[in-house]
């Protein structure tokens, strides 16, 4: 039987009924209608589903919902607004890093978690952080530039 699980997403509390091992991604998308995190592979291999849980970038497609209970979950919907985009979102716009937009959730969330820990990462640290994020449009170079730009912004 599905249990009631309490989740805190983007600062708001939700009660959801789901089996403990249901991937968090399914609950975010299907129950909470937060569609920013994307299903790209379902195997934790592409990064499109990335969310931030207690400061860590996590692959929500392979993260059991029960393990997220009681933790702070941030999805891309919780980052910024139209009028006040998060520095990482703004940097992705400034560097024109998006094309089809499907991987971009994962790129932004992974970068945000990295920059929150370390606002001035070296180029190799950024590349390392993005090792699990795939982009088929090939915007990697601009994504790297955007993250460097956002880091400078956030360090100020």
């Amino acid at each position, binding site marked *: 039987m599905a249990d009631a699980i309490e989740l805190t997403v983007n600062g708001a509390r939700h009660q959801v009924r789901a089996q403990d091992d249901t991937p968090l991604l399914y609950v975010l998308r299907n129950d909470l209608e937060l569609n920013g995190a994307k299903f*790209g592979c379902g195997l934790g291999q592409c990064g499109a589903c990335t969310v931030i849980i207690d400061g860590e970038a996590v692959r929500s497609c392979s993260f059991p919902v029960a393990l997220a209970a009681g933790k702070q979950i941030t999805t891309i919907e919780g980052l910024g607004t139209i009028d006040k985009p998060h520095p990482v979102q703004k940097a992705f716009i400034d560097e024109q890093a998006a094309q089809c937009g499907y991987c971009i959730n994962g790129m932004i969330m992974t970068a945000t978690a990295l920059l929150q820990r370390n606002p001035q990462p070296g180029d190799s640290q950024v590349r390392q952080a993005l090792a699990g994020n795939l982009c088929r449009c090939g915007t990697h170079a601009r994504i790297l530039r955007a993250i460097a730009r956002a880091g400078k912004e956030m360090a100020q």
Partner: protein
Amino acid sequence: MREFDLGRAVPRTEDLKLLRGRGRYTDDIVLARQCHLHVLRSPHAAARIRAIDTTTAAGAPGVLLVLTGADAARDGLGTFASRVQRKRADGSANFVPPYGMLALDRVHHVGQPVVAIVAESIAQAKDAAEMVEIGWETLPSVTDTAAAAADGAPAVWDEVPDNVCFVHSVGDKAAVDAAFNGATHVAKERFRINRVAVNPLEGRTALGVYDTSDGRYTLYAGLQSPHVMRLELASNVFKLPANQLRLISPDVGGGFGMKGSAHPELGLVLWAANKLERPVKWIAERSESFVADHHARDNVSTVELALDRDGKFLALRVATIANLGAYLASMGVHVATNNLGGLAGTYTTPAIHVTVTGIFSNTNPTCPYRGAGRPEASYCIERIIDIAAREIGVDPVELRRRNMIPPKAMPYKTGLTFTYDSGEFEKTMDMALERADWAGVAARRQAAMARGKLYGAGVASVIEIAGGPADIPLEEAVEIRFDATGNATVLAGTHSHGQGHETMYRQFAGHILGLAPERMRLVYGDTDLVFHGRGTFGSRSASAGGAAFLGAAKKIIEKGKLIAGHLLEASALDIEFADGRFAVAGTDRSIDLIEVAKSSFLAARLPRGMELGLDAKAVVTPPGPTFPNGCHVCEVEIDPDSGVAKIARYTVVDDVGRVVNPLLLKGQIHGGIAQGAGQALLENMVYDPDSGQLLTGSFMDYGLPRADDLPSFEVTSNEVPSKNNPLGIKGAGEAGTVGALSAVMNAVNDALAPLGIRHFDMPATPERLWRAIRDARKPGG
């Protein structure tokens, strides 16, 4: 100059939506009562189906419907069409396999759909699939391209014992043979271009709806050409009038050609939705995509170049075996046969002959993928030039230079099919060499070798057809509708799935109509709203969509002049339109387009009898195809101990004609190079030759390029406007890929040349490179 104009580096207007997670892709659309479809696929490369027992599965918890190929036959459902026909050597028409949605009594590749199961949840559908019992009788299979064409290979189809689908020849064979007889030198090599998976980050998706009130179907799916797919499904599969079918292609997470190809699941969800009278959704899982999507490339070519004593190219002879897969994708035969003209490259080679043998194999159909035959053609000529240069002891840049078509020769009828309208190939190459610091290659090579590395540099001067086909280009449609508030809705037949069309059409509107970006909304990807469209593929959207926008805008301006003349009490003949304003010539009396649009909805402000409104449609066939071209320069460093090849530098100078938006353009070039370099260095679809099983079925086995695999690319434009497009645009979507395969592999081969390796095929993966280097270093090796 206005902000949104042609040539301006305007940031994308799409981004605020996409970067906040507000994109609306097919899987984000959730309909009431929707249920889930799972496809049970063939585990065998070739097998007979003795029996299918679905009884237990049909009774499993949550299961709503189980469908088989026999059900499709009973319901009279048709098969997908191959849109290009060719002939066999004896003149007979090529065999078109019956490409139904579900297998009937035979399967021909791993992953072929066999049974569709619909349940309340996807988990229930998958559980039920385990309960389907199928009696298989496995058969011998063949997956490798050359092996499938060899004598004695297992026949993929009983109807085609030799696996030859077609033999297609183009060019003047007699002239080529004569030129080879008189040649001073002939360079000859066999090239393999490996099979790749397209892998858009958003896999294929489909949501089918059947409306019981009017018997209409709606399909939500990531599609590059919704109108073309509507025609396919309506005419060939469901045999319905097209107006009974609505296709909506919302935000799409990358297509790259593959999402223009008709796949079984598009029909399955509609068929199931009709039977259940409920919406039915199918979402590809990634491992499923690898075995269920149409693949790409996969051919073997024997290439011969004849040169005279001065290094002038006399003739080119190419024989290609192209692997079409078990079934023919919508445009599979097109890829293998319709972009061969690119073999002429940027050179004056007077005689060219090519024969393509299309073969069946027990693999997924191959479909267009960024370039669709263009990168392959460029690779043949650019790679053989480097081999010839080495053999005759001439610098590869110098050899290209001696044979390049000069600008004064334009329009230039090449040795094969195409007539180029424009291009400054030598200047473009020189610009690229300068920006790449070609003169510094020797020093960088020396420095790398001092560190124990191998180092190579490669050049590719490439050209491709865009906005084709060559004889009569495909039309495109645009409608411009003003409303009573003076704002415009632009409805386009093209489809944006990462290209940034919303921004591009706003620039067209700014340039041609003087319209501010916030006054324009773009609609695309809905066959009920957009009246016609060919869609987005073949680097055509800027050139064909731009021509169509211009056509519709001219009609808006014509009617606007009549209204403005009336309001300004002048003859329409005296009205001039510029920068968004209608003015009486030679006076300071004027009125802007916004006011004219508002007035068009007020009968009192119109000439008596004029129809209300300000809107126009245009379906425009551009006067000719365009020929984007460019020069790519790549430098590669290889670690001989690990076999890892890294791109050290990459420089491109591209002539895509008139540049609409340098930011969008560079993004397209970057992406194209990433996909070309990905194939050259990392990506490879591998089948087990004995069992026909796909061995590369996930991102753990298949190397998609990552941030750490790619350098920053230097991209510059040499704008030479096309004479075949009213806006001068040539197109940019495929240019990066067309050059990258050649430039990267020429660099890799240059690095390996000191080891005595004459030619090394892609992909230059660490394992393959390591083996090649080890073998070359063996004594006597």
